[in-house]
């Protein structure tokens, strides 16, 4: 597979390490009530779609960027690649 790195262009997916569903960006706040349930759903449950899937890849053998790759799990077609840090900020994550 090839991941079209937003900064570096097309790179072999072999340079990357896969983590999983990009929903992992949305880590709950551990200091709130009922955090265990929220963390259970966050950490363990997945949509696991057959189709478009937003997922986290890490360019371990490259520039060490975490990326959000939108990829079709049936055809493996890559629809878009974004810098995860930008995505996280857009989702409102900061410090």
């Amino acid at each position, binding site marked *: 597979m090839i991941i079209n790195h937003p*900064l*570096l*262009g097309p*790179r*072999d997916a*072999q*340079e990357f390490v896969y983590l999983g569903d990009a929903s992992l960006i949305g880590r709950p706040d551990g200091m709130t009530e009922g955090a265990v349930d929220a963390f259970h759903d966050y950490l363990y449950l997945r949509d696991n779609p057959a189709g478009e899937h937003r997922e986290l890849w890490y360019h*371990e*053998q*490259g*520039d*060490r*960027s975490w990326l959000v790759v939108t990829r079709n799990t049936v055809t493996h077609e890559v629809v878009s690649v974004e*810098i995860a*840090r930008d995505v996280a900020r857009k989702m409102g994550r900061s410090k």
Partner: protein
Amino acid sequence: MPEHRLKSLTPLGHDKPKTTTHGPITITEIVDVALASLAIRRDQAKAFTMAATAIGIPLPEPGHYKANSTYRAFWLGPEQWMVEAPFASHEDIVAVLRPAFGATASITEQTDAWVRFDVVGSDLPTMFERLCAFDLRRHGSGSSTRTMIEHLGCYIVIHSDEKFSVIGPRSSAHSIDHALLTAAKSAF
């Protein structure tokens, strides 16, 4: 630098850098370059750039390498560069750079984290296409990237059609050396 009584070894474990020649290819271990990583601290981009300009450190775009008179640099990752300087004058490179950047940068000595081989010869892509997936024929002088060579993340710097540098993890110097030589023999 103060005089001390410890003698250095090259990454391959010799007193002097090793040079190997096979056919049109010469592979040389390079030890006279000091390295430091420079990363921009939050909200300091402007000041950081000014500091770099003032001291003469180039800040190349992603995927690139750039040389100024004293300093050369290649891009490591977002907001991070590797700076090269002559070892003789910059052995304690952080001490040299810190005053210039102050609180605008995180600076880390990287000199001995890496082994560097300069590979000189004609038709280098024919050798390097046996080593890495990077499209060497499409990227010309001034390109630089990190990619996998022999299962290891290594930086490649393309100085010219006839000269590439391979900068890989120092502890694996022997494995990288072996890979380079094997590829040269396979290609030529």
